[in-house]
C-alpha cells in the first residue's frame, strides 16, 4: 500500500500543492489526471524523494518511504533523461545495478527488456544515435529493469509508438497483477479508462475527484437513453423531463421501469440504458465545476 498523505509545497509565492493525498493499494492501477501545472509532476517527484515537501508524508506498507525501499520502485520522470554517450544495453544494466542488482542480473534483465522492446540489435549503439521513439523505449526499460515492486510513472505514454504503448500497458498490468501499486499520470484519457482501476483528478494543487472508475462514472450518471422504433413522438407521453438527442429520448427524473413500459408499448425498444460518461467527460466536468 502506497499512501501519499496531505502534501503541501510552495515554490516561492506559488502554491503548487495544497493538501494532496492519494493511495494506491497493492495491485491497484491509479490514473493521475490533471491539467498542465495542476501539480501531478510535483506530487510524483515528492513521492520519489527527488523533491522535498513542505509538509506531508509518503507511507509505504505502513512505514515512511525511505531510500532503501524507494530503490525498489520504478520511476519515469516527465522530463526524460538518459546518458547520450553511453551504450544502450550498458546504460540499462547500469541503472539495474544502481537499484541494487548484481552485475550479471542487471545485464540479463537489460538483455531481456531490449528483446521485448525490439531493440536487441541496437544494444551496442550510443543512446544519442537512436531515434526519439527508441530512446523512449530505452527510458521505459530503465524504469523497469530492476523488476520494481511499485511504479510511479509521469506521463509514461507520451511520445510512445503503438507498440511501446502496448508494452508499457502490459508492463503496468503485469506489475499490478503481481501486487504492485501503480500510479501513473497521463493526458490520454482513453488509456486511463482502459488501464486504471481508479482515477484521481487534481486541479490547482488540490484533489478534486477520486475513486474507482465505476464509482466516478456512477456518480455522474443522470440520463436514461431510450431508442424506440415507432412513428409516434413520445416526448409528451414519457414521464419526467424528456429531451431529444437525434432519434433518442433522454429521460431524467423518472421511474425507469415506467419509462420502459410506455416505450415498449409504443414500439420495439432497441436501446435502453443510463448514459455512462467517459473519463474525459468526468474530467471536464470536475475541472470546470
Amino acid at each position, binding site marked *: 500500500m502506497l499512501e501519499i498523505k496531505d502534501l503541501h509545497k510552495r515554490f516561492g509565492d506559488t502554491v503548487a500543492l495544497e493538501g494532496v493525498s492519494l493511495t494506491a493499494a497493492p495491485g491497484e492501477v491509479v490514473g493521475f489526471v490533471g491539467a498542465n501545472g495542476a501539480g501531478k509532476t510535483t506530487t510524483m517527484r515528492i513521492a520519489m524523494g527527488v523533491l*522535498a515537501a513542505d509538509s506531508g508524508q509518503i507511507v509505504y506498507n505502513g512505514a515512511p518511504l525511505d531510500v532503501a525501499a524507494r530503490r525498489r*520502485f520504478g*520511476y519515469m*520522470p516527465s522530463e526524460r533523461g538518459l546518458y547520450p*554517450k553511453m551504450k544502450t544495453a550498458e546504460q540499462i544494466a547500469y541503472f539495474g545495478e544502481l537499484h541494487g542488482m548484481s552485475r550479471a542480473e542487471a545485464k540479463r534483465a537489460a538483455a531481456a527488456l531490449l528483446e521485448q522492446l525490439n531493440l536487441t540489435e541496437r544494444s551496442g549503439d550510443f543512446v544519442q544515435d537512436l531515434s526519439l521513439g527508441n530512446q523512449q523505449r530505452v527510458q521505459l526499460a530503465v524504469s523497469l529493469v530492476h523488476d520494481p515492486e511499485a511504479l510511479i510513472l509521469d506521463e509514461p505514454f507520451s511520445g510512445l509508438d503503438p507498440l511501446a504503448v502496448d508494452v508499457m500497458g502490459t508492463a503496468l498490468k503485469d506489475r499490478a497483477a503481481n501486487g504492485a501499486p501503480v500510479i501513473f499520470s497521463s493526458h490520454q484519457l482513453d488509456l486511463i479508462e482502459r488501464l486504471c482501476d481508479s482515477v484521481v483528478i487534481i486541479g490547482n494543487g488540490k484533489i478534486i475527484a477520486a475513486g474507482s472508475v465505476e464509482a466516478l462514472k456512477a456518480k455522474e450518471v443522470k440520463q436514461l437513453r431510450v431508442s424506440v422504433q415507432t412513428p409516434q413522438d413520445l416526448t409528451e407521453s414519457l414521464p419526467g423531463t424528456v429531451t431529444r438527442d437525434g432519434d433518442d429520448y433522454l429521460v431524467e427524473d423518472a421511474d425507469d421501469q415506467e419509462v420502459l413500459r410506455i416505450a415498449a408499448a409504443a414500439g420495439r425498444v432497441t436501446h435502453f440504458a443510463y448514459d455512462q460518461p467517459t473519463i474525459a467527460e468526468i474530467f471536464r466536468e470536475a475541472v470546470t465545476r
Partner: protein
Amino acid sequence: MSSPTPETSRMRGLMLVAGREIRVRGLSKANLVSLIVTVVIVGVLAALPTILGGGEDEAETIGLAGTNAAAMESQLKAAGGFDITMYDSAGEAEQAVEDGDVDTAVADGTLYSEENPDQGLQTRLDAAWQAAAVQTSLAEAGLSDAEIAAALTPRPLATVTLAEGETDPVTSYFTGLVISIIMFMMLMTPVQYIAMGVVEEKSSRIVEILLTSLKPWQLLGGKVIGLGVISLVNLVAMVAVGLGVSAATGVLADLPPGTASAAISTIGWWLIALVLFGTLAGGVGSLVSRQEESGSVLTPLIMSLTLSYIGAIFTLNAPTSTFAQVLSIVPPFSAITMPTRMAITTVPAWEIALSIALLVLAAAGALALGAQLYKRSVLYTGSRLKLSEALRRTA
C-alpha cells in the same frame, strides 16, 4: 533481490558511479587515442638523447704552437675533450684559426679565436696554460717527470655539504618544473571533466532518475574518484613508458636520487588538491543547466589553478623568497607550489606540515561547499543560479 546493509550500499553506489565514469570516459575512444598519442610522444622524447648520440660533447679543435706547446699538449690531453693540432709557429696557428681548421689556438701566451671564446673553454685553457707554465719551469729546475706530476696533482678539496640532500641545482630545477607541469595538467583535466559530467547529467535530466537511487554526495564523489583514477592511470602509463624507455636506453641511471620519493609525495599533494578542486568543480557545474554556460562558472577555478602554476614557476626561480614561502603555504596555491618548492630547495618541516594542514582543511571546506552547492542546485533547471541563490535554497 538481496537487501545490502546501508554501509555497503553506500559504498557500492559511490563505486558504481566511479566505475561508470571510468568505463564510459576512460575507455572512450577519445581518451584512449589521446593516451596512445601521448605515450608515443613520451616514449620518443625519452629515447631522443640516445637517438641523437648519447649527448657526448663534441671535442674542441685546438691548435698549439710556440712556448710551452708540448706542456700544453700533455695538459690538454690529460684533461680530455680536445682535438689537438701542433703548428710550428704562432703565425701558422693564427692562420689555422682564421681558415677555420681549428676553433681556437694557443701560441706564445696568446689565445686566438674567431669569436669570443666561451667562458668554460677559456677557463679550461687558462688553467692548462698555467699548469703548463709551471710544468715547464719545474722541468727547467731539474725535477723529474714523476716529481712534476706529483707537484701538479695535489689532492682535490674534499667537499662537505651542510644542507642535507642537496642535489645538482639544474636537476632540481628540472624536477620541480616537471612536478609543476604534471600537477597542473592532472588537476586541470579532471576538473573540466567533472564539471562537464555534472552539466551533462543535469542538462539531460537524467539526474532526476539517478537521485531516486543515489544520494547527491555519491553522485559527486563517484565522479571525482572516477576521473581521478582516469588521470592517474594516464599519468602512470606515461611515466611507465618514459622510465621504461629511459631504462632500456640506459639514461635511467642518470635520474637524480629521490625522484621516486618526490613522485610519491607529489601524488599525495595531488590527491588532496583533487578533492579540493574536483568537488568545487562539481558544485559550480551544477549551477548551470547548459554545457555552454559551464565555462563561465569554471573560470574562477581555472584561474586559481593557472595562478598556482605560475606561482610554482616563480617559486622555481626564487625558492627562498617570501612570496614563494607564502604561496607554498596558502591553499589552493600551495597544492602545486609546495611540491615544486620541495623539489628545488629544502623546506622546513613546519612549513610543510602547516601547508598540508591548511590544504586538507581547505579540501574539507571545498567538499562541504561543493556538495551543498551540488545538492541544492542540481535539480534546478532554467537560467544560471547565482552562488548566493544556490546557498539560500533549501535542498
